[in-house]
């Protein structure tokens, strides 16, 4: 779910303009080559909506009617976007699966006509070429792509619970082979231009140009067009051949794939792999396999039909709606709703070179902001600097960064033990040990050296910000920035404002977070804010389940079976048992018995014995051994035995345990909205999915309540309440929704 890039516009619906003036597609004939230029004037990216499609069909028909045209080039006038996909609104406006299928069949037909075109089409690709855009490109006879970093090809539909529905499942296997096609369609991964060339997805690469007599971007598109026109002419003159010479390996692979039993085995293997990874919770991957199989085994016509029908069905599933909801939510959380900050943060200082501090420093220098990384000891600092270096160096190994770029980025980092340079800092983010008195000390020390405009951000996962701000002379400049570990991988940033935090401070923190590439939710202050507060009751319930004799492995499979990417026991190990114990105790004090369930002493005892989770090598599981199979920590099992509880049979079936865990999470989330900690359900869903791994197929706690039904959930909770008490008392807002089924969190 991490990188849905299928960008969307809201343009498709306003398509009722006069036919005479084309607004999205234009073309001119150069040397018998028709250059078709796509440019959606209403958006930053091109999408295939009704309007775009209509104009394209019109233009293509005109080209075919023009005997002077011997070949055609298809190119986008937008820098950074060829065609970013289909217009999602177009599908969302449909009421039935049949309606969606019908729409797709029109698209399929258009691409089939291009594929069978009497004159060759050259797709000249610069920027995102995704989903429907890629399907369009692969219907063309020849593809040329720029090697720009912005040029990415891919079929991300699966991440939205959909499938490549305009011929993608039919053409891709033929073009790149069955295994690569499955990989593309089932992972939705972005493919860079040079990889695409190696795979046979594009025929030719064009180097991006620097500035000349025009800007680099403008000139690169022009150049791409010139080169594409040359190739188009070459295709007509038979100087350029479409077929690539196949290597021996390719020939062998083709032969093997030609054998029906081999193919059957591949379908089976892929199917099993998908089932294992998705736990059967995501219908789209299975449908993709089905469409590919139908096309190959029963022919094109059957394949296209299966593709359009299955797409229609998928578009109507709650999973697809949930994933699309997350996609929109993510887009919304990548904007600054607090306006432009008065000052741009040009110099940032991070206090504490631990896992978090170094991670924050890495994502900051990565975006060109000079950063001080301060620690109190040389060992701590060296470890932190090494972490940053390793993070960047790993990118050079993956070739997403050159060693030179790595060095330039590293040069922005200043590791130090003193407060030198803090007088010029625009923002300080502290990531020191989670202890109120230490945080107070740091606030005072830092405020003595920073300039008046400098913002002080505190990275804490549970301490209320207002308690930290109590030591501050300038609480309006103080804000919470809760990062998730590992910082360079986790997308979420939870920003916490107190009643005293100024709007400009918030705007500035959001701006920094966005620069760091984060998806941001801004929430109110309180113990555990939003994310930690939701997670705590669920972990308490998980501890109770463990005490009741559900083994860690069983607990993990129950949670992953519900759609959590990481099982509850593993999650506790990842977070750290000590952190979990700390948080459980703090929040238990703040919220009372509602946060009860499992005994906090279990966690404390584990910490005492050194079972602090992955970082200490032992937690619920034993780590360090090279074997992939995780072993349950017998020491932890002994502790659990000593705290054994009897499981009430009425609420201990597998499904009960799952719902006990989830309902406490969801109830707490709804309570956060009720109390105003959360500004809206969208941020609640995004925070839960991106920060805590709430099942993406459910779309977040709020969408889950909508789709599952608040009344059904309340019923379940009341049933649990009978067995366990107030931990399962539904909050008022949830009860309101249960009473009135027209109330929904998402419209």
């Amino acid at each position, binding site marked *: 779910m991490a990188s849905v890039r299928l960008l969307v516009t809201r343009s498709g619906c306003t398509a009722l303009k006069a036919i005479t003036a084309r607004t999205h597609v234009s073309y001119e004939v150069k040397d018998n080559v028709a250059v078709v230029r796509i440019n959606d004037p209403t958006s930053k990216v091109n999408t295939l909506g009704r309007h775009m499609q209509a104009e394209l069909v019109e233009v293509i028909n005109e080209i075919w009617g023009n005997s002077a045209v011997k070949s055609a080039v298809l190119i986008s006038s937008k820098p950074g976007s060829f065609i970013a996909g289909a217009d999602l609104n177009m599908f969302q406006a449909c009421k039935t699966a049949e309606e969606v299928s019908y729409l797709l069949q029109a698209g399929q037909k258009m691409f089939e006509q291009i594929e069978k075109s009497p004159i060759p089409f050259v797709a000249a690709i610069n920027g995102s070429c995704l989903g429907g855009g890629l399907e369009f490109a692969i219907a063309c006879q020849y593809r040329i792509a720029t090697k720009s970093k912005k040029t990415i090809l891919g079929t991300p539909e699966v991440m939205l619970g959909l499938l490549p529905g305009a011929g993608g499942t039919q053409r891709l296997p033929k073009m790149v082979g069955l295994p690569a096609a499955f990989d593309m369609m089932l992972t939705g991964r972005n493919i860079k231009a040079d990889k695409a060339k190696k795979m046979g997805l594009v025929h*030719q690469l064009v*180097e991006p*140009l*620097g*500035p*000349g*007599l025009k800007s680099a971007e403008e*000139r690169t598109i022009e150049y791409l067009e010139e*080169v594409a026109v040359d190739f188009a002419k070459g295709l007509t003159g038979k100087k350029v051949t479409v077929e690539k010479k196949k290597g021996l390996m390719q020939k062998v692979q083709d032969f093997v794939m030609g054998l029906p039993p081999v193919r059957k085995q591949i379908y089976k293997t892929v199917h099993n792999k998908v089932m294992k990874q998705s736990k059967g919770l995501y219908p789209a991957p299975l449908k993709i396999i089905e469409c590919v199989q139908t096309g190959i085994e029963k022919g094109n016509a059957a394949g296209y039909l299966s593709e359009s029908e299955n797409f229609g069905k998928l578009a109507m599933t709650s999973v697809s709606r949930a994933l699309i909801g997350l996609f929109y939510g993510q887009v919304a959380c990548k904007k600054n709703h607090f306006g432009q900050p008065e000052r741009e943060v040009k110099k940032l200082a991070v206090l504490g070179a631990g896992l978090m501090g170094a991670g924050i420093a890495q994502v900051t220098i990565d975006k060109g902001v000079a950063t001080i990384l301060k620690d109190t000891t040389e060992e701590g600092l060296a470890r932190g600097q090494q972490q940053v270096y390793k993070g960047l160096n790993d990118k050079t190994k993956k070739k997403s960064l050159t060693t030179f770029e790595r060095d330039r980025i590293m040069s922005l980092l200043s590791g130090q033990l003193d407060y030198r340079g803090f007088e010029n800092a625009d923002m300080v983010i502290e990531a020191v040990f989670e202890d109120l008195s230490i945080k107070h000390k740091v606030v005072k020390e830092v405020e003595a050296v920073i300039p008046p405009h400098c913002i002080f951000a505190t990275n804490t996962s549970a301490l209320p910000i207002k308690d930290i701000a109590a030591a501050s002379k300038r609480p309006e400049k103080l804000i919470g920035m809760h990062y998730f570990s590992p910082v360079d991988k986790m997308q979420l940033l939870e920003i916490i404002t107190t009643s005293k935090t100024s709007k400009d401070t918030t705007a500035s923190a959001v701006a920094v977070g966005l620069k760091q590439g984060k998806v941001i939710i801004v929430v109110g202050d309180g113990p555990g804010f939003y994310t930690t507060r939701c997670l705590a009751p669920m972990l308490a319930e998980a501890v109770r389940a463990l005490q009741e004799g559900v083994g860690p492995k069983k607990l993990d499979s129950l949670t992953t079976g519900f759609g959590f990417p990481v099982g509850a026991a593993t999650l506790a190990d990842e977070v750290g048992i000590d952190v979990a114990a700390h948080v459980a105790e703090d929040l238990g004090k703040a919220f009372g018995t509602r946060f009860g369930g499992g005994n906090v002493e279990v966690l404390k005892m584990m910490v005492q014995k050194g079972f602090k989770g992955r970082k200490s090598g032992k937690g619920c599981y034993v780590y360090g051994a090279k074997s992939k199979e995780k072993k349950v920590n017998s020491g932890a099992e002994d502790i659990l035995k000593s705290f054994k509880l009897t499981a009430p049979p009425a609420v201990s079936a597998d499904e009960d345990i799952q719902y006990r865990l989830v309902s406490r999470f969801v109830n707490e989330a709804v309570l956060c909205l009720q109390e105003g900690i959360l500004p809206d359900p969208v941020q609640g869903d995004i925070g839960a999915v991106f920060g805590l791994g709430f099942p993406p197929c459910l779309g977040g706690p709020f969408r889950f309540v909508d789709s599952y039904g608040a009344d059904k959930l309340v019923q379940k909770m009341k049933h649990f309440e009978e067995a366990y008490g107030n931990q399962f008392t539904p909050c008022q807002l949830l009860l309101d929704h249960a009473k009135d089924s027209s109330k929904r969190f998402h419209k």
Partner: protein
Amino acid sequence: MASMLLTSLRSSPLTSVQAAQFAARSLSTSVHLQAQAKSKKTLAKPGVKNIVLVDGVRTPFLQSGTTYADLMPHDLARAALQGLLNRTGLPKDAVDYIVYGTVIQEVKTSNVAREAALGAGFSDKTPAHTVTMACISSNQAMTTAVGLIAAGQCDAVVAGGVEFMSDVPIRHSRKMRKTMLSLNKAKTLGARLSLLGSIRLAHLSPELPAVAEFSTAETMGHSADRLAAAFGVSRLEQDEFALRSHTLAKKAQDGGMLSDVISFKVPGRDIVSKDNGIRPATMEQLAKLKPAFIKPHGTVTAANSSFLTDGASAVLIMSEEKALAMGYKPKAYLRDFVYVSQDPKDQLLLGPTYATPKVLEKSGLTLNDIDVFEFHEAFAGQIMANLKAMESDWFAQTYMGRKTKVGAPPMEKFNTWGGSLSLGHPFAATGCRLVTTVAHRLQKEGGQYGLVAACAAGGQGHAMVIEAYPQ
């Protein structure tokens, strides 16, 4: 005041002018008086010493792997230095310092300046150091000399540069080097054997030097092709310019203009006295070549790029007083110079565009004042791209922070005796060739100001204004 005096002196005979100059200088004034055929002012600045190019020579520039193939870099450098001694009749101990440029270093002679100087018979009391700045290394050597003289530390400095592409250091792989270095330290036979046993086939693959940017890993030809495309320079334009370079070089060679070339008796071989890369072809022949770097749609070919060359050059630079005192008739004044640098990826070869307006501004000149242009021709596409950039107000405003364009040099003044594309381009020797050529062309054509400009790897560039010495 200077111009008033100048006017009054213009009609005087040469000798009396020079006498007047001496008189003026002996009165410890830096106002420099001189006669000129044209009415342009001199570029002498108050408080700044006049520094002159006494003479310059170079070995013939040969395609690498030809007659020089069995030499070493310092042999070529030695030939150039000896040639300079012969040409100027300079007493060997009259030189205060030697600065020499080189790019691809022969590891045995890392300070090639010293080895060549000793071999050429210079006094062992004359210190020598080597500089490197890619294709503008000998420009750096010359300006280092200018600096030494201007600072009053030296009076006579020899500068030059050598490049020897027939042999380049090819190294063992890093892994192999590491093993070999550990082998030195291994004390016991067992330790040695185990190290030897650790050598794998992959250790044996060598490391070749590449004409590629370290920072971007892009080869220069590739960058040139992208630069040409960025400025919309066509293949035809490039081929035409390459042909022009070869044609003009041929004409200059046949017409005896390339008087900076000295004859060199190569040990074991014949006497070499001519550049061997000048090959005027036809446009059809040029059009046939396939692109060398960006395939198949690129425009830079072997024929419109400079080729790998062996060669060395040397110049004698002195303070004007010293030159005159020693009885020399200098060829030119070396005036203002600049070094520039820019983005090594997309503007790698745009040095001349950046350097030209800057050095003109420094000298108080405009492009129209320049009589002779000598630009280093790395690639035809690079030259054309620079000319287009210099003609563009948009480029000047957007990337150089200037109000207007500087303008492109008129072709009738531009590299009229050929250039690096045809004469050859021994990286570190080209700078001296450009400066000496400007001096010679100014003498031949009667101009007053010349401009040298060059690009260099690393996204750097250089330009220098040269003023004719009054005849």
